[in-house]
């Protein structure tokens, strides 16, 4: 009998016990199939987000059609479009208002890195300067299928999250921050220009 159980599962069971493992599975199954996104579009990508939710691509097949206008009821924030410096504090505030567990999909080039508009004086070069991002979708704008693909990627991520143990999900860890400081408007730029607790770019030498 025990020979048929796969090795990973067995070590998991040994560590956490059958009760935790099956609860975790049920819990993650429930969470994964009812991700409620925040109804919140910024720019061009938001239109593709609407197209994803509309009849052709039908996000409802993944349990994500319930777009909530209030961050208090949302699990997922799809940052769809260019984040300007004027908008960034609002986005961080919205993120802070979302209840845990919360996820962020950074949709499109602009939300990842400023994209084509990164040379602009009012464009934030990536929302991950202020809040942690779970899935990045490149593309300008990404096709609705690409958003669905990212959605499935997020579901896989949720599926892999653990309830207990060393590597438990960050939202269950009381030491992990779930709110981040909101940047302030300065005379020349946002203050601070990035949150160094969140943003860790590699140094590139050319």
């Amino acid at each position, binding site marked *: 009998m025990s020979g048929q159980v796969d090795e990973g599962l067995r070590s998991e069971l040994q560590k956490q016990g059958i009760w935790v493992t099956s609860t975790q599975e049920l819990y993650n199954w429930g969470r994964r199939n009812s991700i409620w996104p925040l109804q919140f579009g910024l*720019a*061009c990508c938001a239109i593709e987000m*609407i*197209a994803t939710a*509309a009849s052709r691509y039908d996000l409802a097949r993944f349990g994500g059609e319930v777009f909530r206008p209030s961050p208090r009821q949302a699990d997922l924030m799809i940052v769809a479009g260019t984040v300007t410096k004027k908008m960034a504090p*609002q986005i961080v505030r919205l993120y802070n208002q979302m209840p845990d567990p919360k996820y962020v999909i950074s949709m499109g080039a602009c939300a990842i890195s400023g994209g084509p508009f990164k*040379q*602009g004086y*009012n464009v934030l070069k990536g929302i991950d300067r202020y809040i942690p991002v779970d899935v990045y979708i490149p593309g300008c704008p990404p096709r609705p299928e690409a958003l669905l693909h990212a959605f499935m990627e997020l579901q896989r991520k949720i599926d892999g999250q653990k309830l207990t143990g060393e590597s438990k999900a960050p939202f269950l860890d009381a030491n992990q921050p779930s709110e981040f400081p909101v940047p302030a408007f300065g005379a020349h730029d946002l203050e601070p220009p990035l949150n160094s607790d969140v943003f860790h770019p590699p140094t590139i030498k050319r």
Partner: protein
Amino acid sequence: MSVGFHELEEAPPPMTSRLEGELLEVSMGPQHPSTHGVFRMNVALEGEIVRKLKPVFGYLHRNHEKIGENTSYLGSMPYTDRLDYFCSMTNNWAYALSVEKLAGIEVPERAEYLRVILAELTRLQNHASLLGFLLSDMGAWGTPLMYAFREREKILDLFESLSGSRMMCDYMRFGGCRCDLPPGWMERARKLVDGFPRFLDEFEKLVVSNEILIARTQEVGKLSAELAINAGITGPMLRACGVNYDLRKVDGYGFYPRFKFRVPLGEHGDCYDRLMMRVLELRESVGILQQAMEQIPPGPIVNPKVKLRSFRPPVGEAYGRIEGPKGELGFYLISDGGSNPYRYRVRPPSFINLTILEDLCLGHTVADVMVILGSIDIVMGEVDR
């Protein structure tokens, strides 16, 4: 020591502050389900009635003009797609038209026809999705929007098979278009255009005689012709006030004089007229498309004299404009003879159409603000640039 109620010698005085007649300030947006993106309005309300309304812009100000001044003329073309992201084709056209004016470039006949066809298809999908959004703002959750997006997807498919992208077409070039039609495209387009009136009929039946819609739009947000002209309002919004000013007729750019079409005009300038204006324009666009598809000649699609790289127009300035789906879309370019424009300015129709937002909303309820805003037809990418 705690104080019991019986120890009070006198009852505490009643609160003197009063709420009647006081203005309640509400900030709607930038994250609001029906502000069409990141638009914000600071509204002062007396009860439910709007007494003051100040729009706040800039939440999507992504420095289009500054980037345009630092990029080559060709390099700005894909950026224009992202101005009004519903109508990349008309944006392309307006920009190409301005550069052609600036450098004195001729456009071959077939390319002009292609531009007309694509611009009218853009108008179809813009107006269709606008109607969907407007009804969605009014509380017709989902259904009309789904129908509108169903039609829009079909047009996007055409754009995709022609230009390679659903929304960001980047299709037009100075002196023509980038590539010719792929095989079978025209048949598909014809089929779509012929089938479009059915959607329109259904849509009209769905909404136009709907009592709730009439109650919410008629006599709401009335705009007088004088104010509309003075405030620079253009597009369907202007024509809903009864002013006959359509750049396709007035400027006669791009072979529009060759097509027979009427300019629908409104009477009252209220939200209902603005909504109906879109429906009527859709019907005219279908007519233009059918004529253009009949007449389109074979031939080259791009002027071979125009260099793709290191394109330098002569010193001078030009202002070109077209009738975009949202209004008069203009580009003002100053060339200093270099490879980048010295000044690159976009005249955004939806930004200027918002000038009279406060005038329209005063005295209406806060729920009407959404309807009025929806009927103006804004896209934040263009408002803030």
